[in-house]
């Protein structure tokens, strides 16, 4: 028996495990110990569940106009039997919207759109941003300058205004709004990736791969990019939150999702002049947006702390 094996045996006897633990396992453990991250994951879990099952749990379809089907009026206040609403009235726990549709069902279906908006824009922005940032950082020189100065120009505009301008060019609609928000968020990811690439480009293990005959593609994606993963995940999670907010804002202004799509921002925007007479139609979609954004913010913060090696002593 070698010395090393002896050592392991004696350590095992003292109850110290030497089983290797991956970074992701550590991250998971730390994440589950944080109350805020747990709250975020719980809300997100519920939202994902609602989004996946909306067509089963929603009492009505999102575009189901109830005129002639039930005795309800446009913008009727919520009617909940448990809280004293007369039993002979049909139950609508979030009330009726301006086009005589069940607001609750529309809110449930809205979870689908918001999650889709968040994930698709950020995926788009991460892919493009990563490619641009990686090229800028790896190649350097005038190409780096060109790409990053262009990113500076994009960053010099308030993101919402730039998104409005892009949507006006492309024409209003959900897909174009997604594209606009995606484009606007590219610079953040390009910067993150470029910074990571610059910080490890000259490391010895990169030179070693090069010396062993690895091509640029392999060096970039197998050796350098894994280092950019951590900040990208954090930035991406927080980015989903702001993408959902921006998309809701565009829809609020009438530039994003078009009726009858149950997008929370456009539901809110359509009824904004009725805030004094039918406050539930403004209040509830806003709460839905805020909860979704909150869940991603909490999760993003939790991930940042969990992935931060400087906070290792916390775990």
């Amino acid at each position, binding site marked *: 028996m070698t010395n090393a094996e002896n050592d392991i045996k004696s350590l095992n006897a003292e109850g110290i495990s030497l089983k290797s633990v991956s970074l992701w396992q550590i991250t998971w453990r730390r994440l589950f110990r944080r109350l805020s991250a747990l709250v975020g994951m719980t809300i997100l879990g519920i939202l994902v569940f609602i989004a996946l099952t909306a067509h089963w749990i929603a009492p009505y379809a999102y575009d189901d106009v109830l005129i002639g089907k039930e005795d309800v009026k446009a913008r009727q206040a919520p009617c909940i039997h448990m809280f004293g609403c007369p039993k002979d009235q049909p139950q609508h726990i979030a009330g009726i919207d301006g086009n005589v549709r069940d607001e609750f069902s529309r809110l449930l279906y809205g979870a689908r759109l918001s999650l889709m908006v968040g994930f698709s824009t950020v995926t788009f922005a991460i892919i493009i941003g990563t490619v641009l940032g990686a090229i800028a950082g790896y190649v350097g020189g005038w190409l780096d300058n060109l790409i990053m100065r262009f990113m500076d120009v994009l960053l010099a505009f308030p993101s919402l*205004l730039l998104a409005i*301008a892009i949507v006006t060019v492309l024409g209003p609609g959900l897909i174009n709004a997604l594209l606009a928000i995606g484009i606007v968020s590219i610079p953040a990811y390009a910067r993150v990736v470029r910074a990571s690439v610059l910080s490890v480009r000259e490391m010895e293990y990169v030179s070693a791969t090069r010396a062993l005959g690895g091509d640029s593609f392999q060096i970039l994606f197998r050796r350098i990019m894994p280092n950019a993963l951590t900040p990208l995940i954090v930035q991406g999670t927080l980015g989903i939150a702001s993408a959902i907010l921006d998309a809701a804002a565009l829809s*609020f202004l009438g530039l994003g999702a078009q009726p009858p799509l149950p997008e929370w921002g456009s539901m809110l925007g359509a009824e904004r002049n009725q805030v004094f007479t039918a406050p539930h139609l403004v209040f509830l979609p806003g709460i839905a947006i805020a909860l979704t954004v909150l869940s991603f913010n909490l999760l993003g913060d939790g991930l940042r702390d969990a992935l931060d090696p400087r906070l290792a002593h916390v775990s």
Partner: protein
Amino acid sequence: MAQYIFRRILASIPVLFGILVVTFIIARVIPGDPCRAILGEKATQEICDRFIQIHGLDRPIHEQLFVYMGEVLRGDFGESIRFSLPVTRLLIERLPTTVELSLAALMVSLFVGIPLGIISAVKHNSWIDVLTMVWANTGVSMPVFWLGLMLAYVFSLLLKDTPFWLPPSGRISPGIPNDPFYKVWDLTLPESGLLLATYQFVGRLNILNALLTSNWELLKDAIKHLILPALALGTIPMALIARMARSAMLDVLGQDYIRTARAKGLRQRVVVMKHAFRNALLPLVTIIGLSLGSLLGGAVLTETVFGLSGVGRTLYEAITARDYGIVQAFTVVIAVFFVIINLLVDLSYSYLDPRIRLE
């Protein structure tokens, strides 16, 4: 120092040039016919041809770009096609609304956010800390337009007959005298130029103008109108600033020199404010600079919700109405503003931390 500022300004020229080109291109590729967008669907071909010729829209695009660049360098932003007014005049008219709103929102976020952050760092893990963090996390997650509408609902409708009632829209109530200071002081206005623009600009900053002319009625009314929009716009930056102030203070409070200061027997207030806060300011200034930028995006929504004709709403309307003049001029002004803020933030670093040398 002066050399650094000069070099920074030089370095921002390419970015400003890029911004000019990008806005110009965005304004030109917005689909749709500017003539019919402005004059209406029924405008005849003949009228449209003349319209296009008058506004130089028939020239090649690169020629239009050069003409435009030349005009901008001379401080002439051309005319708004929609309002038939010089864009500069519109800017003087609408900028004060946004400036007042943004400054008020910034004050809300600073005067609430920083103390909250400091207190929750000093009383780490206490109920006030937990409450602040819950509030900060909720604050950054709320849509600005929703918060604005909810504030209007609570303060303009629910609190209608109480002293807490606040107006839901506009800048001043009808009938309130708001003579600009140059009229009250009997100043003779210059014909044109920068001085006239400054006079008119200041005259439209209601609160400053009210103070200059001792018009207390106007002051009270303008402040009442400003509270709700400022709260709506200031909440997100407030939450960001509170969070950053807390984590920066926590970092600093754990340092050895803080223990030394305490061991010397210094009072808690001196330790926190003089030793700790000053050193926590650096990351705080960065986030304040960033939030100032995001205020302008939020201003579009806040101005829409509260019926204010400021820069944000005008720009949004101009983009959708294809009013090239306004889009180009307002974007340039906003971008220049961004560049200046970034410069100020960088300059403040060396002031706050003398170890940082600006090279």
